[in-house]
């Protein structure tokens, strides 16, 4: 190999068939456009992976039925109808679950090199994060609405009118979004240890929730 000449100014352009390169500047809208592309990719992934759909929908419904009808008789919450106590708790739990289950998705993207591919493209850096979290948020909206419908079917009611009900839902979604963003930001900083932690979190959470269930029983 010929060593690279450490010479001074190189002759300008077009030498030996090389054409000059126009600098690429990302437009300001890049983050939105790219986030939409990434979010669509992630939502397609969720929709086409039955396990994820089941995890996100069937499981919380099962929890509702389990606690409402199987354990419900043994749990007495003073001063409040048990079902009105249960459903908000399940909604929050589901949202937390969601953040961790898609965290696994991100860690898979990293280990499979998909994140490297994104990072080698002239796209907005933040869009990878934004797209992911937007997809998570969209899924959470669906799951929370589903939980409310199921809740109402088993006797849950909002007691303070429409405004506060919407506000409560927004708080739950904000919690979910914050968690998923937090998980992802952690990933951005710590690669390998983070990946390992991601695989552990979903395994640990059910145990935590069992404890939560025990504590509800006075």
């Amino acid at each position: 190999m010929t060593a690279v000449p450490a010479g001074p100014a190189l002759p300008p352009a077009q030498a030996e068939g090389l054409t000059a390169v126009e600098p690429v500047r990302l437009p300001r809208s890049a983050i939105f456009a790219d986030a939409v592309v990434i979010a669509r990719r992630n939502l397609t992934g969720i929709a086409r992976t039955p396990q994820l759909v089941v995890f996100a929908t069937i499981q919380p419904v099962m929890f509702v039925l389990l606690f409402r009808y199987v354990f419900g008789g043994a749990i007495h919450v003073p001063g409040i109808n048990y079902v009105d106590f249960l459903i908000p708790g399940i909604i929050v739990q589901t949202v937390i679950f969601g953040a961790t289950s898609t965290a696994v998705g991100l860690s898979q993207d990293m280990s499979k090199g998909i994140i490297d591919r994104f990072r080698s493209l002239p796209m907005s850096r933040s869009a990878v994060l934004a797209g992911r979290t937007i997809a998570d948020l969209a899924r959470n909206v669906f799951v929370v609405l589903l939980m409310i419908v199921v809740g109402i079917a088993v006797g849950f009611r909002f007691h303070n009118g429409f405004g506060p009900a919407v506000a409560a839902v927004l708080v739950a979604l904000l919690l979910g979004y914050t968690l998923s963003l937090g998980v992802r930001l952690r990933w951005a900083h710590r690669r390998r240890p983070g990946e390992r932690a991601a695989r552990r979190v979903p395994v640990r959470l059910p145990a935590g929730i069992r404890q939560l269930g025990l504590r509800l029983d006075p």
Partner: protein
Amino acid sequence: MTTTTHSPGRGAMIEVEGISKSFGETRALAGVDMSVPAGTVQGLLGPNGAGKTTLVRILATLLAPDTGRARVSGVDVQKDPNTVRSLIGLAGQYAAVDETLTGRENLVMVGRLYRLGAKLAKVRAAESLERLGLVEAADRPVKTYSGGMRRRLDLGASLVGRPRVLILDEPTTGLDPRTRLDMWSFIRDLVAGGTTVLLTTQYLEEADQLADHSVVIDRGQVIASGTSAELKARLGSDLIEMEVRAAELDRATTALADIGCGAPVIDQARAQITIPVCAPVPDLMTALRILDAAGIVPVDLGLRRPSLDDVFLSLTGRSTGDDDLAARLATTPRTPRPARSAA
């Protein structure tokens, strides 16, 4: 800055000057220089942990070097990464494609992220699929693809942006021989179309087949470079390799002491004698006459050109410091080197 254009220098599509990179205590790259002319294939050879992937990641803007600089088509990878990203295509060791999407959806997504716009992204995706023979499988989810198809799709994804420079990081590692040949022919087609390729590989045959010029790196440094022929020429002479019956090894060795133009290598365990020769055919014939006179019939006998593997092993293996080829080959184990400690 927005109006200036970058000027590439002297036809070198990839220029690497004094790049070094450390991860904690580990020195991955220790001052690498490299220059790849436009429209050529550069082989980047080295054992595991030599620093190949680190160099690739720096050129692909995934990693910042500690010192030195790298330019692609005259554009500095650190100063203007987005421009570099629009010029390169990266295909890695593993197929970086989304399993739940179809092949076509994967390519369209990458096209959108290359900022091609929806229509053009679709056109380019279709082009790529056709080029890589994936038209029939295009609308099936990638999880139904075989390993070779995934790898082809990954290569296809790196082509969607019509890159000037294609960076292939061990594109055929883990593929079966048939699929590897397919990949090679795809890569040859691309080069014929004028794309510059940086190809990292552990397979010397691959560099031999595809690369115009190769660089061998080990422990973060360039230890050799040249065309395959030049690298082989470093080893100089051809070799007579023969295996005899163990009982006759000493007798054969003594009888053949005057043959060749270098010290023979004796492998006691395999009863094998390797003799460097400068006049291959006459030397072989003389050797046979001597053996015949001594009544020794070799179990196996051959004359061979040094392979790139010999070059590789003699360059990266632990050398005794002796310049003699035979001594170097003799001290070079035929097995992968033991892992070095991180320190």
